[in-house]
C-alpha cells in the first residue's frame, strides 16, 4: 500500500468519525466504500466496517456522556434487541450476489445524502437567521 493510499484512508476515516459524531451514526456509509476502494470485496468491506465502527462509536459515546446527552438504558434496550436482527441481516447480505449488494449500498448512499440535506434544511427553517 502506498503512502498516499494510507493518507487518503486516514483522512476519510477521520471524516467518517466526524459524520458519526455529528449525526449519531457509525460511519459505515463512508467506511464501506473506502474499504472497497482499498481492494476488499463488498461483504468483507461490510464486516470490516462493523469492526471499524466500534472505536468510532465508543469515542463518540464517551464524549456525549460528558455532555449529559446519553440515555444508557434506552441504548441498551435498542442495542440488545438489535442483536436478533443482526443475524438476519447478515444472512440476507451473504445470500445476495456481490453486484446486487453493491448496487443496494449505492442506493443507500444516495438515500443518506438526501436525508442529511433534509435534516439540515429542517433544522435551518426551525432556527432562521442563524449563520
Amino acid at each position, binding site marked *: 500500500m502506498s503512502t498516499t493510499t494510507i493518507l487518503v*484512508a486516514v483522512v476519510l*476515516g477521520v*471524516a*467518517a*468519525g466526524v*459524520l*458519526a*459524531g*455529528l449525526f*449519531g*451514526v*457509525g*460511519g*459505515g*456509509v*463512508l*467506511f*464501506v466504500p*473506502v*474499504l*472497497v476502494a*482499498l481492494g476488499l470485496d463488498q*461483504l*468483507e468491506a*461490510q*464486516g*470490516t*466496517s*462493523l469492526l*471499524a*465502527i*466500534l*472505536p*468510532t*462509536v*465508543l*469515542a*463518540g*459515546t464517551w*464524549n456525549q456522556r460528558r455532555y449529559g446527552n*446519553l440515555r*444508557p438504558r434506552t*441504548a*441498551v434496550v*435498542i*442495542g*440488545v434487541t*438489535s*442483536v436478533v*436482527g*443482526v*443475524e*438476519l*441481516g447478515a444472512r440476507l447480505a451473504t445470500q445476495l450476489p456481490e453486484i446486487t449488494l453493491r448496487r443496494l*449500498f*449505492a442506493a*443507500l*448512499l444516495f438515500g443518506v*445524502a438526501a436525508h442529511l*440535506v433534509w435534516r439540515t434544511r429542517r433544522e435551518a427553517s426551525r432556527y432562521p437567521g442563524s449563520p
Partner: protein
Amino acid sequence: MRLVAIGLVAGVFSAFFGVGGGIVAVPLLILLAGIPERAATATSLMAIAITASAGVVVYGFRGEVDVGYAALVGLPAAAGALAGSAWQQRIRTSTLTYGFAVLLTALGVWLLAG
C-alpha cells in the same frame, strides 16, 4: 415496545449493509420514542456499539473481517468522532453536512460505475 421495534430494524439494517444502523435509529428515536435530537444521536452511538459488536462476531465467523484495515480507518475515525460530537454541541454544521452529502453521492456513483 417501540424501542424493541427500533432495535430490530436497526439490527437488520446494520448487518445487511455493514453500517451502524444509526441512520434509521436516530429518526426513529426522535419520531417514535420522542427523544430530543441531540440525546437521540448520543443514545444511538451507544446502541451501535452493541449492534456492531454482534455484527463483528457474525461476519467474523464467516471470515469477512480484516482487523488491519479496520484499524486503518477506525482509529482515525475515533478521533473524528470526538471532534464531531464536540462540534455538535456548539456550532451549526450545515456547510459540513452538504459536503458530506456531496461526498456520499460521489461514492454512490463510483460504486455503481465500478
